């Protein structure tokens, strides 16, 4: 039987765009809000648009979902892709509309970008993704960003940051911990660059 990708539907927007993009690169997608589907799937995708708190509230409102995800990704090493706020939720804390717990998979905080007349916030548009370490799924190239908060690693020695971009200063573009990859940008809105990343994700055997 073909591999399945569980696209987690927790009321946090742009589900269809991610669904469309995954289908365009040949994924067998199951859109679901049921932990049992998540436990069964070969790969997991967590989208997310809106505020950190609203997304986290949406996820925790589904009984057992956060724990099922943790088990599937951190214990059973299922490949996971978090997109935008879906990536931010991997962090310990978010500071959007107050301090809120995230999933806590990686040490770090999601903090506001600081605007100025020259550095507009939201960080909106195409920017260069620069990998910081050895080869990973995230390659160098231009991707579409749309966010006002960004991941800041808690401990530089164990930083999960695997790619950065520049907007005013250095901004986290991607993080990785074991089989969990998170991207701040929107692969589903990044034309060829984004579809290529999704293709590599589907083939990823971490």
């Amino acid at each position, binding site marked *: 039987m073909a591999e399945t990708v569980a696209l987690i539907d927790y009321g946090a*927007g*742009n589900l*269809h*765009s991610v669904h*469309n*993009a995954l289908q*365009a690169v040949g994924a067998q997608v199951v859109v679901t809000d049921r932990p049992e589907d998540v436990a069964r799937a070969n790969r997991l995708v967590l989208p997310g*648009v*809106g*505020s950190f708190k609203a997304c986290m509230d949406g996820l925790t409102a589904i009984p057992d979902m956060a724990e099922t995800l943790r088990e599937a990704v951190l214990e059973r090493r299922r490949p996971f892709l978090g997109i935008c706020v879906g990536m931010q939720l991997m962090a310990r804390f978010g500071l959007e509309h107050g301090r809120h717990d995230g999933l806590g998979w990686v040490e770090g905080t999601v903090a506001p970008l600081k*605007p*100025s*007349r020259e550095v*507009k*916030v*939201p*960080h*909106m*548009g*195409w*920017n*260069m993704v620069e990998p910081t370490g050895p080869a990973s799924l995230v390659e160098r190239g*231009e991707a*579409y*960003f*749309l*966010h*006002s908060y960004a991941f800041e690693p808690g401990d530089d020695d164990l930083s999960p940051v695997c790619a950065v971009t*520049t*907007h005013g200063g250095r901004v986290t573009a991607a993080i990785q911990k074991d089989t969990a990859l998170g991207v701040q940008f*929107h692969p*589903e*809105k*990044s*034309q*060829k660059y*984004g*579809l290529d990343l999704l293709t590599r994700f589907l083939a990823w055997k971490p």
Partner: protein
Amino acid sequence: MTVRVRVIPCLDVANGRVVKGVNFVDLKDAGDPVEQARAYDAAGADELCFLDISASHEGRGTLLDIVKRTAEVCFMPLTVGGGVGSVEDARALLLAGADKVAVNSAAVRRPEIMADIAQRMGSQCAVASVDARRVSAPGEPARWEIFTHGGRRETGIDAVAHAVRLAELGAGELLVTSMDGDGTQAGYDLELTRTIASNVDVPVVASGGVGTLDHLVAGVVEGRASAVLAASIFHFGKHSIAEAHQALRNAGLPAREVAG
């Protein structure tokens, strides 16, 4: 390098077809919106904007279908505006596949709608459309007011103050259209764009009046815009998206290098 200047083709849509008017009169049919969107996606447009100018309820229903079909084949951000009167309208467009929703007249009647949309669905999807005409006489300090109904109806509202307020209420982007320039191909109202961009932290999209590639460059260099929107110069094949990107790079501005 930093975030790239976005080049945004805008498709005016009425009753399911793409139209583009000169000063919103004399509409000319320029094709099927989904096909055009796909062509712009392939050409490397940085975003796409649909502006619905349907007057009827039936036309609005068609728009949702177009947005849905566009999102199935285009993997770039899509902003949809025109006739968004409520948070529910905005939500319906986002669910259909729009990434951002531009609010115009509704935010003139009740600016707080920007806060409602931003709180419910995030600032990143809340675009405030600011349609302005210059009302100061030549020689006077420049002043602009908001006009609605395709630029025909005056409101007496100061355009810069309105724009600043909408950004403060939670708009994540301002789409600033000079109704004097719209359809003329004489260039953006650079002073209008610059005045607003200099007073807000959110990105400003320059719109209304593009006739040449130099106008796009001026929108950023002199108008301080983060993105440049144009219609006719792209639709009728006068220039490609790649040429627009190249013109921006030639002027020393960051722009995407995509095949197309």
